[in-house]
């Protein structure tokens, strides 16, 4: 189960693999596409409303507790 990278034999920390970098670039690009689509006026109103609803409810709950 344990990996035995060459780095561990050289006592140097392993580098981030290329597939991990590619994954995070894809995630950032997807988030940017969603933001741009939202700014261009595509319909995300119900989803956005839901997110705001969750945030506002958590805010209300905190106020009620306080």
């Amino acid at each position, binding site marked *: 189960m344990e990996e035995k*990278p060459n780095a561990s034999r050289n006592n140097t920390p392993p580098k981030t693999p290329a597939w991990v970098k590619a994954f995070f670039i894809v995630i950032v690009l997807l988030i940017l596409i969603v933001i741009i689509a939202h700014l261009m006026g595509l319909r995300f109103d119900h989803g956005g409303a839901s997110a705001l609803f969750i945030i506002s409810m958590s805010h209300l709950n905190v106020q009620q507790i306080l």
Partner: protein
Amino acid sequence: MKLGPNLRKFIRTIHVTVTVGWLGAVAGYLALAIVGLNSQDGQLVSAVYLSMDIITRYVIVPLSLVPLLFTGPLLSLGTPWGLFRHYWIIVKLVISILSTLILLVHLKPIQHMAHLAVTGTISSADRGAQIQLVVAASAGLLALLTATGIAIYKPRGMTVYGWQKQYGERAGERSDVET
């Protein structure tokens, strides 16, 4: 915390069952969303959105929360794999968190469409919301397929934290042998 072999197998069984069930439920949800988008039969469209609301609330949401909050952390923290030692586990965690967040954000449009289905007032003005449900379900299915593939192939790559842990444990073992 280390899990015994029997408990580990039991939790792994729950984890695999729930995650594959989540994948299957999203596939069924996508099929319904496509039918809801393309069908001209009003009764069928109403039935589709009511079904999607029920499937989401009682199947997909519970199936998404169990591996994210319980079985996933238990399996990783209770075994030598760890939660932050290998990149593939971190990537799976990120996919699970994003998928669940997107699902929770889309509960509102699903409920909105189900409400319209009950009142029989679905119109061409709701086309955007219908397309949004198909796109979200497709993205969710793709994300879950990716997570399943990563879990099976376990691509190589150890984090600096994981490397330090493994190197430290080996150094400890060596010093134990020498003394």
